[in-house]
């Protein structure tokens, strides 16, 4: 149902956000832990990256309908 789509999208979005945030967090944490001597910027970076990626994904997902997809068709000889 089309009305559920948005909800689904939001779910995905949220899920994805959560994942990405988590992943970012994790990565940040990891990075922070690993690479960046437990600074918080990688976590926030990671979090931010995660969030940003999630937001971007969410937006893309939400926008996906309106984006035109073109395909290259071979010209007929």
């Amino acid at each position, binding site marked *: *149902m*089309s*009305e559920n*789509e*948005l909800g689904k999208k939001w779910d995905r979005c949220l899920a994805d956000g959560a994942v990405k945030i988590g992943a970012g967090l994790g990565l940040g944490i990891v990075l922070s832990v690993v690479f960046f001597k437990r600074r918080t910027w990688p976590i926030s970076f990671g979090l931010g990256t995660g969030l940003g990626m999630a*937001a971007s994904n*969410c*937006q893309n997902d*939400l*926008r996906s*309908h*309106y984006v035109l997809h073109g395909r290259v068709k071979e010209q007929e000889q």
Partner: protein
Amino acid sequence: MLRLSVRVADAAARRRLCQRGPRIILQHSRPYTEGNTGGSAAKIVAAGLVSLGGGIGGTVLYAKWDSQFRTTVEKNVPYSDLLFGLALGPATSLDSTPTKKQLELAQPPSLMLEEANSSKNKAKKVKKAEVPSVTAATTPASNIEEAAAEASHIISAMGEVPSVPAPQDSEAPKEQCEECHQLSPPEMALSSEEPSEPGDVLTAPEEPLKERPAEEVTARIAQQDQADQDTLAFVSDKLEDSLASSATTTLQAIAAQEAALQAILQHTQKLKEAMETEVSAEQRSSHWKDLEDAVCARSRNVEEAGAALVQARASLDSLRAVVESAKDSRVAALRPMVLAAEENLHSMTVDLDRAVDKVQSVESEAKIVSQYSELVNEAKQQFQRELSSITPEIQANWKGLSGTLSVDDLNALIAHAHRRIDQLNREMAEQRVREQVHIEAALEQQKLEDQKALEKAVSLAVEHNLERARLEQERKQVELREVMEAEMRTQLRRQAAAHTDHLRDVLKVQEQELQAEAEEVLSSKMTEQETRYRQLTQEQLDNFTLDMNAAYARLKGMEEAIDSHVIAEEEARKAHQLWLSVEALGYTLRSSSLDSLTRPLEPAAQAIRESCQDEFAVALAAALPEESLQRGVYSEESLRARFNALRSLARRVALVDESHNSLYQYFLSYLQAALLFEERQEAPPAKISSQDLDPFKILSYASYSLEQGDLELAAKLVNQLRGEARRVVQDWLVEARLTLETKQVVSLLSAYANAVGLGTTQAP
């Protein structure tokens, strides 16, 4: 005609005058037409009636005068015979010659009526009158010729039966016979008193010769034969009777004559004896007594003989008369009888005459003897007278006194005797002298007498000879006639044979002709009957065919009606089925709970498709959207409910569209949705332009419409949503569209089913 022309003129006058408008002139014209028409018409009618009456009267009068004209008119004009019968009385074609018939009848009845009056039977008079009338017609002809003519006439009458009028001779007696039958006896008696001439008999009858049919001819011939037979019988009876009577009387007469003869002979003998034998007185007296007896006997016998002779002669005369009358009769069979009777008569007369002659001769002898005896008596008487004159005492009867005579008387007697003897001697001498003269005289006398007797005998003998000759002639005639008859019969037989042959041929030809005719008639009748039969059968067939056709047509009509009924019922059934299926579809359409789909409409649609083969319904059923069929559609309530759920979502994404679809927009739209308040339901105006519409209004209008149940308007309104809201409501829209479509189809179907049902429903 006149009236018509007058009416036309009147109409023309009216038309002309009507323009001026005067009624007076019209009223003037009316009596003009009425009066004149009546007068002239009455005149014409009167003239016509007068002429008609005159014509009829003239015809009747002329018919009364001329009967032939009458008969022609009666033949040609039907019912004129009734008119003539009324006016003139019945027409008889013989009315014109009544007197002639009476004249014809007058002569023959006069011959026979005197004879017939002696007979007692009056009924025979008619037949008798017939026969003489029959005979009178042909009296002039000779017997053989008339017989021949009669035979020829009979043959001709029989041979030409159809339409040849019989010849006059045979016609006239038939006419007369008819007249005999028609006339009553008193009329005949009346007519017999009129003297007539035989010449009138054979005048040609003026009335038209009516030919009688064969049966009448044969009847007449049979009647004639019967009449002949009757006359034959009658005449023969009469002849026999008279013959018998005359024979008896003649025999009686002859016997009487014989007796008389004998008596006379005896008497003469006695007389002679008495004269000659001079015997004794007693013998003499006995002689004289015998003589007297003989005289008495003789006289008696003679009287008797005379009476018997008279009677015999009378009967002979009557017999002769009968014979004569019978001779007049035309019947041939009588002739030998007549002849025999005549011969008998002749022989009887001859015998009678002979006997009479004998008697007469004997009488003459007796007369001589009596004369002699008379003379002797006279002499004796004289002698006695002389004696008595001489001797007066002696009485007359001196024979008885023979013993008492005196001498004187004896002397006187002797003297007288002597004188007498002398006288006688003298007389004898005288006689001797006169002997010659006397003898001559006697001879003369004798001659005379002989002559007379001879004449008489001669005449008698001549008569007898004549009679015999006549009888001989008659006999010869009869024989000849018989021979002729036989020959005639043979000729007639031959002719009859020829006639029969001819008749046979003619009959054969006729038979053939008649057969051909009859066959023709039969065949024509048969063909007629056949054609009629065929016609009848054809008619019957036609009628039957017509009936059959009619019945067939009716049957066909009934069948068609039934078929149409069936069809109609089928249609009705189909319509009902359609309706039912549509109802089922509708029910299926309604058969959903709040949030769920209806049942799939496929079965119902299938039912519809199966139930009716109607194109429209099938098309409509095919027009049902696939999803509705397979999956079912959402009911309005579910849609409504869904919309209510959708509304908030659509509110939330109201600002998001193609160009504005970032998250920020999402946030903004969410904010808007949280902050904006609109009417929950708002009645949409009649006209909406796209500028007026924003999602919130649209949604409120749609909500209102939905609440009102107007899914279509709601869908329309929702269709106005753009952007993400539209994307959000897309499914709902699709579902709404489906539902709407389905509903539309279903409504169409139901309307169609209703219409069809209405169409097929028969009003009671």
